[in-house]
C-alpha cells in the first residue's frame, strides 16, 4: 500500500474463485481437494484433455507413496478408492553393485515391522491414482475442473490475480498456484528464475513381469552409471527406475524389448526368476531444478514447479504432496482468521515452511547420487562399510525408515492424520 492510487471498479469486484490452480498432474488435484475440503472454491486448469491417462490398460507408470502422503490422500478421500489397487512396501533392501557382478556383499535392509506406523509406503499405478483424482474432483462441489485448457497469460490486479485461457476466457481469483511442472509457465510469467543442473543421466522407467513373488520388498541397487530401483507392484510385477548415462540410456531405449531385457538382466539379477516388459517404456532426463522463490505477488508454486529433484529416493510425488498439505493448511487457516489469502505475508508462511525442506531433500539426493554413481575403489569400500554400519545400528535404521516413510520434519496436519 505504498501507492494508494484509486482503484478501478472491475478490480474490486469479487473474484470468480478463491484459488486458481494451473496444472492437473500429481500435485494440483491433491491440492485442489485439500483446499476445497477446507471451504475454499478452486478452479483447476488442466492442459490435458480429461480422457487421457484414464485408459484402463496399465501404461507402465507407478509411484512410491510414502506413509505420510497416504494420510493426505486418505484425508482427501482418494486413498479408499485406490487402496485395493496398491502394493504395500514391506521392506527396502539397498545394495551397492556393479553391472556384471550382481549386487555387492554389503547391503542395508529395512523392514516395516521396525516402525509402529505400518508399511513405510505403497506403490500406486498412475492410471488408478489419476482416475481417482478425476472422480474426486468431479464429485466435489467446491472444485471446477477445466480439462484441455491452458493458461496463456496472468496478471496481478488490485486484490486479485487473473488468467487468460487459450479459449480467451478470463478467470480471476485471490491466488494463482502453479502446479505445472518443472517448466512451469506460472513461474516464468511471474518472473521467478530457476537454479539447477542436469546430471548427464536419464532414467529408464517401465514395469517388469516376473516369475517369483517379490514379497513386497523394494530394492535399490547403486550402480556406477546410476541407481536401479525395483519397486513391487500388485501381482508378480515390479516397477523399475533405471538410471544410466544419457547416451547409454538413449541406446538402451532404442532397443526392442528383448534387447532391453538383455541389458537389464545383469543389473537386475535373477532373484525374481524370468522377467519380461509389461506396458510402455518411458525415459526421463534427470536433473535438479529449484525455483529461486516458491512465491511471487499472489502466486505460489507447488510440486515440480517449485522443485524438480533427482527421483532416486522416489520423493518427487511425496514432496509435491507435502507442498499441497502445507499450502492448503496455510491458506485455509488464513481464510478462517479473515486474512487476505493472497497477501504476501500469508504466502510467505508457505515458503518458510517448505523451501528449506525441499532444498535439503534436493541436496541430499544430489549428494547420494554423486556418492554412489561412480566406480572409484575407495568410495566403493566406504559405501559398503557405510551400508553395513547403518545396518548394524537399529536406532539409525529406524530413523532412515521414518525418513523414507515421510514421517520426519514439520508435517502438515493432513499428513499427521489430523483435519485442518
Amino acid at each position, binding site marked *: 500500500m505504498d501507492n*494508494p492510487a484509486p482503484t478501478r471498479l472491475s*478490480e*474490486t469486484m469479487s473474484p470468480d474463485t478463491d484459488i486458481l490452480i494451473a496444472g492437473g498432474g500429481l500435485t494440483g488435484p491433491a491440492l485442489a481437494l485439500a483446499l476445497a475440503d477446507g471451504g475454499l472454491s478452486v478452479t483447476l486448469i488442466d492442459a490435458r484433455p480429461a480422457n487421457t491417462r484414464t485408459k484402463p490398460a496399465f501404461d507402465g507408470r507407478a509411484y512410491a507413496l510414502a506413509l505420510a502422503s497416504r494420510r493426505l490422500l486418505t484425508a482427501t478421500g482418494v486413498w479408499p478408492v485406490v487402496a485395493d489397487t496398491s502394493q504395500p512396501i514391506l521392506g527396502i533392501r539397498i545394495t551397492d553393485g556393479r553391472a556384471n557382478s550382481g549386487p555387492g556383499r554389503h547391503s542395508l535392509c529395512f523392514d516395516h515391522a521396525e516402525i509402529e506406523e505400518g508399511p513405510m509406503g505403497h506403490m500406486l499405478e498412475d492410471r488408478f491414482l489419476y482416475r481417482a483424482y478425476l472422480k474426486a474432483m468431479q464429485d466435489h462441489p467446491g472444485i471446477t475442473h477445466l480439462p484441455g485448457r491452458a493458461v496463456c497469460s496472468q496478471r496481478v490486479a488490485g*486484490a486479485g490475480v487473473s488468467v487468460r485461457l487459450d479459449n480467451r476466457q478470463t478467470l480471476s481469483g485471490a491466488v494463482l498456484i502453479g502446479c505445472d511442472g518443472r517448466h512451469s509457465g506460472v513461474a516464468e510469467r511471474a518472473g521467478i528464475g530457476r537454479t539447477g543442473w542436469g546430471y548427464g543421466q536419464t532414467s529408464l522407467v517401465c514395469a517388469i513381469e516376473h516369475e517369483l513373488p517379490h514379497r513386497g520388498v523394494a530394492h535399490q541397487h547403486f550402480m556406477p552409471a546410476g541407481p536401479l530401483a525395483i519397486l513391487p507392484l500388485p501381482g508378480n510385477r515390479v516397477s523399475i527406475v533405471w538410471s544410466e548415462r544419457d547416451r547409454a540410456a538413449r541406446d538402451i531405449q532404442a532397443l526392442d524389448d528383448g534387447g532391453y531385457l538383455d541389458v537389464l538382466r545383469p543389473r537386475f539379477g535373477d532373484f525374481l526368476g524370468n522377467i519380461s516388459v509389461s506396458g510402455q517404456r518411458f525415459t526421463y532426463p534427470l536433473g535438479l531444478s529449484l525455483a529461486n522463490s516458491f512465491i511471487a505477488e499472489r502466486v505460489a508454486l507447488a510440486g515440480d514447479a517449485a522443485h524438480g529433484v533427482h527421483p532416486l529416493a522416489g520423493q518427487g510425488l511425496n514432496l509435491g504432496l507435502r507442498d499441497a498439505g502445507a499450502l492448503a493448511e496455510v491458506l485455509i487457516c488464513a481464510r*478462517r*482468521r*479473515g*486474512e487476505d489469502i493472497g497477501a504476501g505475508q500469508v504466502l510467505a508462511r508457505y515458503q518458510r515452511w517448505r523451501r528449506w525442506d525441499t532444498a535439503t531433500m534436493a541436496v541430499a539426493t544430489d549428494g547420494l547420487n554423486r556418492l554412489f554413481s561412480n566406480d572409484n575403489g575407495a568410495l566403493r569400500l566406504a559405501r559398503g562399510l557405510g551400508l553395513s554400519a547403518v545396518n548394524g545400528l537399529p536406532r539409525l535404521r529406524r530413523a532412515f525408515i521414518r525418513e523414507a516413510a515421510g514421517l520426519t520434519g514439520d508435517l502438515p496436519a493432513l499428513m499427521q492424520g489430523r483435519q485442518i
Partner: protein
Amino acid sequence: MQATDTETGGTTDAEEVAKFEAMAAEWWNPNGKFRPLHMLNPCRLDYITGQIAMEFDRDLSDRAPFAGLRLLDIGCGGGLLSEPMARLGAEVTGADAAPGNIRVARLHAGQSGLKIDYRCATAEALAEAGERFDVVLNMEVVEHVARPPDYIAACAGVLRPGGLMITSTINRNAKSFALAIVGAEVVLRWLPKGTHDWRRFITPDELYGMIRAAGLEPVDRKGFVFRPLAWGWALSERDLSVNYVTASVKPG
C-alpha cells in the same frame, strides 16, 4: 492535521493522536514501522475469531461465519483487524480518533473490495449517539488513552446485552519494560521510540477491575508470547507478563 480532545470529544490524548497520524501511511506496509503488529496479527485474529465463534456459536469453516454480527473495531488504525472481520461476514464499524488513519483505512478497504463503515470518532461519541454492537474489539488501545477506566466504560456502553468485548494491552512490570520499551523500541527498533509510555501500561488485575466496574464479566484471558526460534507470536494460557488479551461479556 491536529486532532484535539475538543474536536473528537473524548478521552484520547492529543499528543498521542498526532503521533499516530504521522505513521498512518505506514499501516499496510508489512515490513514498515507496523511490522510488529503485522507479525502479531495472525495470533490476535486466532484469539478474536475463536472467542467470537465460541460466544455466538459460529463455525469458522463456514463461508461467512460472522454474518449478522455488528462489530466495532475501536482504535482501528489502518484497518488491520476491521478487514479480516468484514471478510468473515461481520457488519464492521471501524473507529479511530486520528483522521489520517481513517483515510488510510477507507482507501485500503476500497482496494480490498470490502465494505466497512470507517468513522473518525471515539468510543464516547459512539455511545452518546446510541450505537450498539454485538462485538467490540478494543486491541492495543487502552494503554494509549488518557483515562482508561472512562474509556473502558464507554466501550462497555456501546455493547448490547449478551455482547462480547475483546481487550488487549501490555502488562506493567520489569519484564514488560525490558521487552516492550528497551527491547522493541531501542534494541530491535521494531517500534519508533516513544510509541509506548511504560507508565500507561496496565496489569491484568487493574484491567479486570476496570472491566467489572464497567458492568462486564471477564470470561477469559491469555498471553501473547513472542517465540524467538519460530520468530512469531503464539497464545499462552499462563504467560501474561508482557502482551495479553482478555474477553468479557455484558450480562443480559
